[in-house]
């Protein structure tokens, strides 16, 4: 049985008095791609952000239940969120490179973590850009501004930036939804490669994308986890009628 990298138990989240997530219990295995699908407002992005405590930045959010990563509750008082967010990196829908050079974008994370040796930084930057499948496109212009890259390249740069601090888990919130089909295809190929080394959790509205690249799929609806299973099962013979109605486009 695959190791449970992430495990939540009866997790409940409120935005003020409004319940956004209700009784979420799920085990996400390591080094697989797990996709979260569901209609807008179902809570999938909220749940994703809970996995590295990005919801701490939103006023009025309260969480009950457990969220364990490697069997440690990440909401324990003694958890350092900065260290947590190194371990559990995040890539967003809209790429957000810093207004710096390509090199500096990737080196930024290691630098603030105390890496100052130039040779070491060069190696980290190259490895990260290689792992993000963008090295060949940028290796001769690392000093150029990241803002001059295309949308797809910027997104891969953001992935490289996340990888540069050696995460174990990479969360992706609709990473390709703002990209053209060719760039989307490159991101999808990259995600399938990345799962060799990292645990990937991806939120997507594109069900064909979830079907193409994920090993497991979780279907959320109105803040609840309706069904979670191997992607093949979800897309060929789901257990719940709600799941079938959603993936066949009959609602949502």
């Amino acid at each position: 049985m695959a190791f449970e990298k992430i495990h939540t138990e009866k997790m409940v989240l409120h935005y003020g008095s409004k319940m956004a997530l209700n009784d979420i219990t799920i085990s996400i295995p390591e080094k697989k791609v797990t996709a979260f699908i569901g209609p807008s407002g179902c809570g999938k992005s909220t749940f994703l952000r809970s996995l590295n405590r990005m919801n701490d930045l939103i006023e009025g959010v309260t969480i009950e239940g457990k969220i364990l990563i490697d069997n440690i509750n990440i909401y324990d008082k003694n958890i350092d969120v900065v260290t947590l967010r190194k371990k559990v990196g995040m890539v967003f829908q809209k790429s957000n490179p810093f207004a710096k050079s390509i090199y500096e974008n990737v080196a930024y994370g290691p630098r603030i973590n105390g890496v100052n040796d130039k040779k070491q930084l060069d190696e980290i930057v190259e490895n990260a850009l290689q792992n993000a499948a963008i090295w060949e496109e940028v290796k001769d212009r690392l000093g150029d501004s990241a803002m001059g890259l295309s949308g797809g390249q910027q997104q891969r740069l953001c992935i490289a930036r996340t990888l540069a601090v050696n995460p174990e888990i990479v969360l992706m919130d609709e990473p390709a939804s703002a990209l053209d089909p060719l760039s989307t295809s490159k991101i999808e190929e990259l995600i399938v490669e990345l799962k060799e080394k990292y645990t990937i959790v991806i939120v997507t509205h594109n069900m064909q994308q979830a079907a193409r690249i994920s090993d497991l799929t979780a279907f959320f609806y109105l803040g609840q986890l309706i069904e979670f299973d191997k992607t093949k099962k979800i897309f060929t013979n789901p257990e719940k009628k709600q799941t079938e109605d959603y993936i066949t486009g009959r609602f949502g």
Partner: protein
Amino acid sequence: MESNRIFDLELKKLSEKVVKMCSQVNKQVNDALIALNQYDIELAKKVINNDHEINSLDVKIDKLCQNIFALQHPVARDLRYILSALKINNDLERVGDHAVNIAKRIAPLEDYRQLVSDLGVDKVTKETSILFADVLSLVETHDLNFCKKIYQRSATLKEDCKSIAEQILNEMMNKSEVVVVASNILIIVNLIERIAGYSNNMAESITFVVEGEIVKHKKKLG
């Protein structure tokens, strides 16, 4: 409320065509078997001439399935239905061909109608009609209660065909003058047995649609 989604309309169109195909093949089979039992050459010719309608519908169903796959990205039950529609379409086309082949073999039996009757061929033709009526009901309704009946009738039919085949071989060994016509009857009986096989296939396909389980190659009875 009926859906007006393009996908649902396409699925409805496909379903109607598959049911139509099954209904037309059912008629072909029944007409071929009536022609055999009653030595009705005109009816046999009608079966042969109507085959082009079956073939035309076969092509339309294949094209419709191809379009749905390409344009609609079906999943789950929809996907299973379309995959099964392709298989059922193929099986029905083959059954249609068998009905035509039976019809083509009736004319040489003119002087041997008593032999055909003595061999008990009318028993298996009646069983085939009832079996295929169940297949049509199953394809129309997707009611899996028909599956068990189909498996049971098919098993009985195959046994009866085997028994007739043995009798035919005995006739051939004992009376050399009937070898040619007996061979013809043997082929007809084999074609009827094949129709039983395709009936089983279609029951398996509908089970796959409804339950999501692949049951082919699994024991069905006992």
